[in-house]
C-alpha cells in the first residue's frame, strides 16, 4: 500500500460501500456513513479524552490517576460509562420535565452538528460547505440555549446562577471567537474550511508548512481564538458556569446518570470541535508540519494535532485558577474583543504588505505587524496592571 | 502594666458610680481579675479600651463559668456562755454561697503589647437575673463568644445586636454547659457492644431490645 492509499483509506472504503447500492440511495447513505463515523470516532475520543484528562491531571498533580480498571486503567472510561448508565436518573420535583429532558440533547446535538464541516483529512470533510466557518458558528450557537434550558429547568438557585453565568460568558466570548477567525478568512478569501486547510499546505520543496500560526497575526489570532474557545467550551480557567467551588456544578447540578454524562460529552465535544476549527484555521489543518513528514496520512496529523490541543486544555486546567464573573466579562469585552479587532487590522497589513519587494521588507513586515499587536495589548492591559501586581512585604 | 489596684482606682474615678472588685486568683501564674457590675460594665470597658495607658483593644478570650449554689460545711469554734463559763465549742457552720453565672473577658493590648486584664461580670442568680452587659459594642471580637456563652450557659447579654444560639440549634432547650445540665432522654438505640450504652438502652426501653 502506498502512502496515498493509506491517506485515502477511509474515503475509499466509503466509496466502496456506496458503490454496492443503487444510485438514488447513495447521497443519503453517504450522509449516514459520515454521521456514524463522526459519532463513533468522537464518542471514542471522548472516552479516551476523559481517561487522558484524568491521567494527565493526576500526573500534573503528582498522582497516578485511574489505574485500577484494566491495564494502566485504560478501561476506566468503560467503568465510568457503566456507572453513569446504571445510576439513578434524578428529576427534581419542581423541575420542568420536558425542558429538563431536552436540555442535554439540545446541547450535544448542536455541538455535534458543527462537526459536519470540519475536514478531518484530505477529502474527508463530511460536507464541503461554501460558508463552512459560518455554518460552524451557527451550529454551535445553540449550545447556549442548551445550557440555559438545563439551568432554568432544574429550578435550583445554583443551576440558575450557573446558567446565567454560562449564557453571559458564551455570548461574550462568541464575538472574539468569530472575530479572531476573520483574519484567516480575510487572507484566504474563503469561508470554506477545506479551502482554508488547503491554503496551508506545505509548498513544494519547502520544509515548513505555511501555517497561519507562523505569522504574527496568525499567532495572535490563534491565541485569541484558543482563549475564546476555552471560554466557549467552559473549560478552566473559564469554567465559571460549572464553578465547582462556588456553585457546585452550575447548570448541571440537578442532573445525574446518563443526562449528566451527556453534558460532559457536550463539553468535551465542544472542546474537540473548537480544537478542530483551530487546527483547520491556524495549524495547517490536516497537513504535516514538515514536508518530509508528508508520508503519514493526513487524518493522522489532524488527530495528532487534536490530541496536542487537548493536552493544552488539560494542562491549562491543571494549572490555572478560575476567573471571577466580572473579571471574565471585562476580559472579554475590554481586552479580547479590541485585540481581535486589532488583529484584523494586523492581518490586513500583513496581506497588503505581501507585495513589498524592498530589501529588508520581510523584517519590516514582521516588526510592524508584531508592534501593531503588542502595543495595543499592553495599552489595553494598563488599567489592570495599575491595579494588580506582585507586592513587596515588610517585616516587623 | 500598672498594678491592678491602681487600675481599679483609675477606672472607678473615670466611671462614676462603678464599683470594681478585685477577685483573687489562687494560681500565681495569672493575675487576679477585676469584677465589674453589669450596670457599669460597658463604661468601664470603653475606659479600658480607650485609656492611653491601657489601650486594651483586644478581647482575646470571652467565656462563661457556672458557679452553682454551694453549701460548704466548716468547722468553727464558737465561744458561748454555758453556765456562766465561757466555753469553746466546735460547731459545723453551713456556708451558703448563692449560685451565679460569670462572664470572663481576657483583655490584651495589641497596640502596647500588654495584658492581660481579666474582667468579670456576674449575674444575680442562675435562673432569672441572668442579664449582664454585652461588651460587643466595645470589642467586636466578643460577638460570637458572647453568643456562645448565651447558647451554652444562658447568660443574656444586654446590647448584643444578634443574640442567637451559636452552636446548638434554634429551639434547643437548656444550656448544656451548665454544671447541672442533664441530658434529655432522647436516647436512640443502636446495637452496640458498649456496656453503658446497653445499660442506657435498658433503662430507656420498657423491654430490652434484642441485641
Amino acid at each position, binding site marked *: 500500500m502506498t502512502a496515498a492509499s493509506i491517506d485515502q483509506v477511509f474515503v475509499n472504503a466509503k466509496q466502496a460501500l456506496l458503490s454496492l447500492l443503487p444510485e438514488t440511495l447513495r447521497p443519503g447513505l453517504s450522509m449516514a456513513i459520515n454521521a456514524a463515523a463522526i459519532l463513533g470516532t468522537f464518542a471514542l475520543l471522548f472516552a479516551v479524552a476523559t481517561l487522558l484528562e484524568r491521567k494527565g491531571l493526576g500526573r500534573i498533580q503528582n498522582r497516578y490517576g485511574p489505574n485500577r480498571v484494566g491495564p494502566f486503567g485504560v478501561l476506566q472510561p468503560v467503568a465510568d460509562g457503566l456507572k453513569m448508565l446504571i445510576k439513578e436518573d434524578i428529576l427534581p420535583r419542581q423541575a420542568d420535565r420536558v*425542558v429538563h429532558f431536552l436540555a442535554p440533547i439540545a446541547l450535544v446535538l448542536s455541538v455535534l452538528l458543527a462537526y459536519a464541516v470540519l475536514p478531518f483529512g484530505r477529502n474527508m470533510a463530511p460536507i464541503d460547505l*461554501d*460558508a463552512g466557518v459560518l455554518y460552524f*458558528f*451557527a451550529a454551535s450557537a*445553540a449550545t447556549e*440555549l442548551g445550557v440555559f434550558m438545563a439551568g432554568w429547568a432544574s429550578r435550583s438557585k445554583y443551576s440558575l446562577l450557573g446558567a446565567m453565568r454560562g449564557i453571559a460568558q458564551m455570548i461574550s466570548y462568541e464575538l472574539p471567537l468569530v472575530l479572531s477567525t476573520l483574519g484567516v478568512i480575510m487572507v484566504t478569501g474563503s469561508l470554506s474550511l477545506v479551502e482554508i486547510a488547503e491554503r496551508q499546505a506545505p509548498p513544494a520543496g519547502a520544509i515548513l508548512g505555511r501555517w497561519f500560526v507562523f505569522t504574527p497575526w496568525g499567532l495572535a489570532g490563534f491565541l485569541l481564538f484558543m482563549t475564546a474557545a476555552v471560554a466557549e467550551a467552559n473549560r478552566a480557567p473559564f469554567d465559571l458556569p460549572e464553578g465547582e467551588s462556588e456553585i457546585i456544578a452550575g447548570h448541571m447540578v440537578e442532573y445525574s446518570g446518563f443526562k449528566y454524562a451527556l453534558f460532559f460529552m457536550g463539553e468535551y465535544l465542544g472542546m474537540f470541535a473548537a480544537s478542530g476549527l483551530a487546527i483547520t484555521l491556524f495549524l495547517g489543518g490536516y497537513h504535516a508540519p514538515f514536508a518530509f513528514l508528508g508520508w503519514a496520512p493526513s487524518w493522522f496529523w489532524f488527530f495528532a494535532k487534536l490530541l496536542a490541543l487537548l493536552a493544552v486544555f488539560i494542562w491549562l486546567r491543571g494549572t490555572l485558577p478560575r476567573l*471571577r464573573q*466580572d473579571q471574565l466579562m471585562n476580559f472579554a469585552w475590554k481586552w479580547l474583543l479590541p485585540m481581535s479587532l486589532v488583529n484584523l487590522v494586523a492581518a490586513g497589513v500583513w496581506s497588503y504588505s505581501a507585495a513589498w519587494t524592498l530589501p529588508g521588507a520581510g523584517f519590516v513586515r514582521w516588526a510592524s505587524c508584531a508592534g501593531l499587536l503588542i502595543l495595543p495589548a499592553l495599552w489595553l492591559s494598563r488599567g489592570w496592571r495599575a491595579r494588580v501586581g506582585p507586592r513587596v512585604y515588610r517585616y516587623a | 502594666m500598672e498594678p491592678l489596684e491602681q487600675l481599679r482606682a483609675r477606672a472607678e474615678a473615670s466611671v462614676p458610680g462603678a464599683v470594681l472588685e478585685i477577685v483573687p486568683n489562687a494560681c500565681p501564674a495569672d493575675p487576679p481579675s477585676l469584677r465589674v457590675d453589669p450596670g457599669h460594665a460597658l463604661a468601664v470597658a470603653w475606659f479600658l479600651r480607650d485609656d492611653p495607658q491601657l489601650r486594651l483593644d483586644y478581647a482575646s478570650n470571652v467565656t462563661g463559668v457556672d458557679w452553682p449554689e454551694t453549701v460548704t460545711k466548716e468547722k468553727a469554734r464558737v465561744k458561748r456562755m454555758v453556765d456562766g463559763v465561757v466555753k469553746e465549742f466546735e460547731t459545723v457552720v453551713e456556708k451558703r454561697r448563692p449560685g451565679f453565672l460569670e462572664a470572663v473577658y481576657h483583655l490584651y493590648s495589641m497596640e502596647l503589647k500588654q495584658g492581660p486584664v481579666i474582667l468579670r461580670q456576674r449575674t444575680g442568680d442562675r435562673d432569672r437575673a441572668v442579664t449582664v452587659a454585652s461588651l460587643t459594642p466595645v470589642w467586636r471580637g466578643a460577638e460570637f463568644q458572647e453568643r456562645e456563652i448565651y447558647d451554652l450557659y444562658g447568660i443574656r447579654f444586654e446590647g448584643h445586636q444578634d443574640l442567637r444560639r451559636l452552636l446548638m440549634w434554634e429551639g434547643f432547650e437548656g444550656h448544656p454547659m451548665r454544671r447541672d445540665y442533664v441530658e434529655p432522654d432522647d436516647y436512640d438505640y443502636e446495637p452496640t457492644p458498649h456496656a453503658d450504652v446497653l445499660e442506657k438502652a435498658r433503662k430507656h426501653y420498657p423491654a430490652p431490645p434484642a441485641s
Partner: protein
Amino acid sequence: MNPVFFILAVVTLAGALGAVALRNMVHCALCLAVTFIGIAALFLHQGAQFAGLVQVLVYVGAVAVLIVFAILLTRSGDARKGVAVFSRSWKTGLLTAAATLATLVAAIVNSPGLLREAPRAPELSVRQIGLDLMSQWLLPLEILGLLLTATMIGAVILAMPEKPSGEPAPGPEKGARP
C-alpha cells in the same frame, strides 16, 4: 407539495403558535427558537444558504438568548397562577390578526400570476454575496453599520443602572491601591 417543505412549515408554525400562546414565558422563548430554526431550514431549503446560516447565528444564537436573558432579568419566567397572561382587549387583537390573515390569504389565492414555475436554483457563492455587499450595497451596509453602533450605544445606556455611584463598587475597583 414537497414533504420537506410541509414538515418544516408544520414545525415552524407549531413553534410560532407555542411562542405566542404558552403561559410560561421560557417555554415561549424556546418555542421561538424552534421557529427560528425552522425558518432557517426553510431558507436552506430555498437555496439561500448564507441567509439561513445567518438566521441561525443571529436569531438562535443571539436574539433568542437575549430574550431568554430578558425573561430571567425581569423575573417573568414563572407563570404565576391567577395572573392574567392575555390582555383585556385580547378579543380585538385576535380579530385583527384573523382579519389580516384573511386579507392576505385572499389576496394570495386570487393572484394567479403567482403560480409560476421556479427557475433553476441559482448558484450563489458566498464570495458573490460578499462582493455585492461591498459594491452594490455599500451605502446600505454603511448605514446599517452606523445604525448598529447607535443601537449598541443606546441599548447600553438604556439598560445601564440609573445611579452607578449608588451601587457597591465591584471588587477590583474597590481594592485599588491606596
